[in-house]
């Protein structure tokens, strides 16, 4: 396998707070890579650096061997890197299906937007298909601001998928989503992955992460702590200590054994 996306020794601080302190991450082409770590360990900040939403103080981000450090979000998206936000950022005052359509124009020049309608038949069908998958088809014509929290998360996921990027960065896609639907999303990710998409996923639902990912990187206090296969990671004492909680935690232990 070849490296598709790489963050190398990235640092970023906010005032006195070192959110990223020399963090490195490799995402192989065609993999599903997990990124886990305690609250505040810098996962979202790393996503923000990769996708151009914040600038790195030092360090390098590269995609297909090309340097994309501090590129603008639209440039990153144009390269084929799509992402979701942990704190959902949907367009609240346009309808759910219009939200989907905003995302379906990666290769289009802006001039074209003037002369064409909101959506072609095939775009609309495609959008509705994704909405149906996340269970929002019935609500397609509501303003997105009327969605419940979990539904917003699902919309956010759906409109990144409809944009059809090559690499998909998901920031806690399962948070607030119903368990059965989480499993379906997991299945979908797996089939998209089989069709060639690469995923980088931040998630606290261990069952989801451990079942799905090929490689897991654990972050802690802005650095990467451990990288390895899920089974290696989950038994690593460093990870147990920093993230999962000690072996005395029966709930977590049980979740793990179920996984």
């Amino acid at each position, binding site marked *: 396998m070849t490296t598709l996306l790489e963050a190398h020794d990235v640092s970023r601080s906010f005032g006195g707070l070192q959110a990223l302190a020399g963090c490195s991450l490799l995402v192989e082409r065609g993999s599903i890579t997990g990124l886990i770590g305690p609250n505040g360990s810098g996962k979202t900040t790393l996503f923000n650096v990769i996708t151009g939403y914040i600038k790195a103080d030092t360090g390098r981000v590269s995609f297909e061997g090309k340097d994309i450090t501090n590129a603008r979000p639209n440039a990153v998206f144009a390269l084929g890197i799509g992402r979701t936000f942990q704190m959902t950022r949907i367009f609240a005052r346009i309808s759910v299906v219009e939200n989907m359509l905003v995302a379906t124009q990666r290769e289009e020049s802006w001039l074209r937007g003037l002369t064409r309608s909101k959506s072609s038949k095939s775009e609309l069908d495609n959008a509705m298909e994704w909405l149906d998958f996340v269970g929002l088809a019935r609500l397609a014509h509501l303003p997105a601001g009327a969605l419940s*929290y979990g*539904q917003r998360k699902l919309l956010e996921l759906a409109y990144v998928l409809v944009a059809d990027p090559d690499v998909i960065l998901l920031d806690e896609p399962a948070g607030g989503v119903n368990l059965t639907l989480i499993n379906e999303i997991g299945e979908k990710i797996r089939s998209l992955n089989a069709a060639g998409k690469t995923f980088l996923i931040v998630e606290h639902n261990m069952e989801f992460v451990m079942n799905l990912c090929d490689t897991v990187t654990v972050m802690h206090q802005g650095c990467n702590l451990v990288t390895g296969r899920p089974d290696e990671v989950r038994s690593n004492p460093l990870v147990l200590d920093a993230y999962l909680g000690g072996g005395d935690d029966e709930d977590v232990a049980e979740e793990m054994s179920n996984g």
Partner: protein
Amino acid sequence: MADAPFVRFEGVVAGYGGGDVLKGVNFDVAHGGVTCIVGPNGSGKSTLLKTVSGLVQPRLGTITFKGHNLVGMSPREILRLGVVQVPQNHSLFKEMTVEQNVELGAFLVKDKKVIAQRLRSIRETFPIVAERAHDKAGSLSGGQQRLVEFARCLMLEPELVVLDEPSMGLDPKTLHVMFGTIKMMNSLGRTVLLVEQNARQALKMSHHGVVLENGLVRLAGTGTDVLNNPDIAALYLGGSVSTRPAH
């Protein structure tokens, strides 16, 4: 008190100006217990909690809390009765510091000493409140904000605690602390009504479970009743434990 339910929902119908989201909800919340509501996304769980705290006014039906009908009361009056809610969406004042946010939780308490004492114990349970006391709440990570929101509700010592997905976005270790705190609050006599998508763990620690589906109660029973119901497990809990594929 033992026989009269602590909170009773009777034929509650509510929505947001269009169609009804809740279509006649009936169930009781027992005094001194933990009641957990589960259900698919958009089934009306948050709406139901909002009717308790007065943020959504039911169109029909009654909600009785200790003999008072909450329908028609303002959120403030309901708060005074001892009902505190932690909403699902991020509700911190982003431009205020973490400490100011937490202190705001006690705006009904006049006694400075009580406030200081509660603040101290919160800092012990949730170190983030002390570590980031003077940072803007909006600069915290999602999970950290969730924790501060929860901490804020501990500043009042309410009789009924209403939590909308308290564990969302928390890492496993913190989630454990959170659930531990909920259990502790409950053992100190507080009645807890919560919604959770982390349903297995939540139902395990709950005395009562309620399944809400499309604005109606599909099943109400003990936590284990809900957990062990095969239909519910398949529909909303990600499959029953035994049928889930092994890794």
